């Protein structure tokens, strides 16, 4: 394989990871959505590049779905929800920015240490991609844990799925079935999230999921 091709694939995958890190320290919901949209665009570039490198034209479809759905449609809709719910204030955090970033760096180190020695047999592009993908998945999880706003949790979950798409396209020749299903699931996820975000707002007058704790089944009697 051409060294330059390899470097470009590497660069794009790393770009997705860096944007995941950037998601962690955004303070405003609108900024979180914008960074997520940017991540989806870089992801679609990365998938498109993999399609060229692997000579797999069907990956272009995956790239296109990622670009349109996660890069344009979902962020636009989320912006609209945020405006409608009037929640473009500061993002509340459970853990503050500094420790979150440190935890994020720790997770990246962990995934590289975990994947690098294990995936010796696969080709180098797949291996590096895979370490990045795992890091993106873990950072998405971290984002979901450290935020308590329903919209930010949605973004965290979709960023986690970006990591899954990155991993699926890095695995050479993975059948289209799975890629379509990922895109499909993201769409369903979005619909469900949309429904829930509105219902949470309707019932609780807020999208702060911390409020949900009040109703934790067993405590109902002490209210």
């Amino acid at each position, binding site marked *: 394989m051409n060294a330059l091709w390899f470097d470009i694939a590497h660069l794009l995958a790393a770009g997705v990871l860096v944007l995941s890190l950037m998601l962690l320290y955004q303070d405003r919901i609108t900024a979180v959505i914008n960074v997520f949209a940017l991540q989806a665009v870089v992801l679609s570039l990365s998938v498109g590049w993999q399609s060229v490198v692997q000579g797999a034209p069907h990956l272009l479809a995956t790239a296109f779905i990622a670009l349109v759905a996660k890069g344009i449609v979902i962020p636009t809709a989320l912006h609209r929800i945020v405006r409608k719910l009037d929640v473009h204030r500061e993002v509340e955090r459970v853990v503050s920015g500094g420790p979150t970033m440190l935890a994020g760096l720790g997770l990246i180190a962990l995934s590289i240490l*975990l*994947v690098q*020695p*294990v*995936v*010796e*047999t*696969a080709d180098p592009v*797949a291996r590096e991609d*895979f370490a990045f*993908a*795992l890091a993106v*998945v873990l950072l998405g*999880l971290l984002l*979901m844990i450290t935020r308590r706003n*329903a919209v930010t*949790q949605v973004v965290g*979950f979709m960023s*986690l*799925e970006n*990591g*899954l798409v990155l*991993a*699926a396209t890095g*695995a*050479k*020749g*993975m*059948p289209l*079935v*799975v890629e379509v*299903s*990922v895109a499909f*699931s993201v769409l*369903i*996820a979005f619909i*469900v999230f949309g429904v*829930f975000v509105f*219902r*949470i707002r309707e*019932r*609780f007058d807020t999208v702060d*999921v911390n409020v*949900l704790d009040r*109703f*934790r*089944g*067993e405590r*109902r*009697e002490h209210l």
Partner: protein
Amino acid sequence: MTDLVAALPLSPVALVLLVPTLAIPVLAVISDYRLSAGLNMLVSGLTFAAGLLLLAAPHERGDFLIIDDFNIFLIVLTTFVGFTTSVYSASYIGHELETGKLTPAFLRFYHAMYQAMMGAMNLALVSNNIGLMWVGLEVATLATVMMVGIYRTPEAIEAAWKYFILGSVGIGLAFFGTILIYMVSSTVIGAGVPAMAWDEIVRNAAALDPKLLSLAFVFLLVGYGTKVGLAPFHAWLPDAHAEGPTPISAVLSGLLLNVALYALLRFKMVLAGNPLAIDVGAILMTLGLVSLLFAAFMLYRRRDIKRLFAYSSIEHMGIATFAFGIGGPLANFAGLLHMTMHSLVKSAIFFAVGHVAQAKGTQRLADISGLSSTHPVLAVGFALGVIAIVGLPPFGVFMSEFLLVSTAFGRQPLLTVVLVAGLILALGALLMRMQQVVFGEPRGKSDPVKASYVPLFVHLLLALVAGLWLPEALVRWFRGVAALLG
């Protein structure tokens, strides 16, 4: 029956998938609830018939679908419980409409989602392609999420949100594991669709890279383990069971947990074929015991009747997981029998609990007592269900637990002590609650129950028959599958 199968224009496998799928759009547009509930029953009945036809169909495999002994038995069980639950649901939702908890528009949605869930579970069961299996579980999860939140009360929305977040993260991690499995299998089998076929992967298991395989299993375990409701990942389960409509609690406990465990076992079989990979048995035994003990202790402090039995489901999935962790023909046999019996008995209990909650107008355990004098038939059904689920003879759960304990003593004597302690703890908690609910002082409101008791007693009867006498053919079959599981 073989001639009948041959004469069909479509294979039974296709029917099991197509019948529920085609029913979704039809059920979504029918606005008369009696008609749609009847149609829901009819469709579930047809799916069950198609599942029965599978018994006579030849075993076959393709790159996408597979039929072997292991999944036939689960498909028959799933479609059967799906059918009886649809019968139960038809009478249950009538009451919900009368009390205004649900509106006809939501019922259309409810029936469509019911069939979506059944179809998706069948898809997960018949897939040979590990990606397709994942899609099936994901769609089933999303369909149940929608149904858990259907009452739109704050509690229901909280439960659905929690279930959705935890379920999605779990299913996301399972997908990561699936990709890893493909990565390792494609180096041996070659890139393309065959590298995702489960039977091809099992055949080549010994040649696969053990380190990568072990890493993949960790992700699959956390992912599908969340769906099974194993202890550290169980947080969604009690809420989802308690806040959704009761027929959904019945299928969640009786079916979806089984399907997730089935997926996990398929991957266990892959790792069993590779001597250098991690020891899956030890991990499953640990998780199983932790779930059992944790749930047994939690049973004592429940205040909500559906939540009580949700924790009991965690307990029983723990027991089955422990059995498969021990492995070997006898323990696997016990595990399979336990999955089947739990499915039948737990859905029966939820049927009874649904009637109780409707009659008493509450799910609070403190407000439910004295059923024996106000609703004698229901009290008998509920008491028999509890007696069956805690593992007292002569019901089938006793058989499977007895079999498990007796084989486990030979293999892991110390762990078996823990197992028995957990079983006894759970028995104490459930019998104590049953005593109060059935024989306590009657109080609070008590409406007559109009719904049908047939599904409840059919399930209990089957569990009773299985406890007294297992047909020779079924025993042979369980043995075959147990040997398959290794």
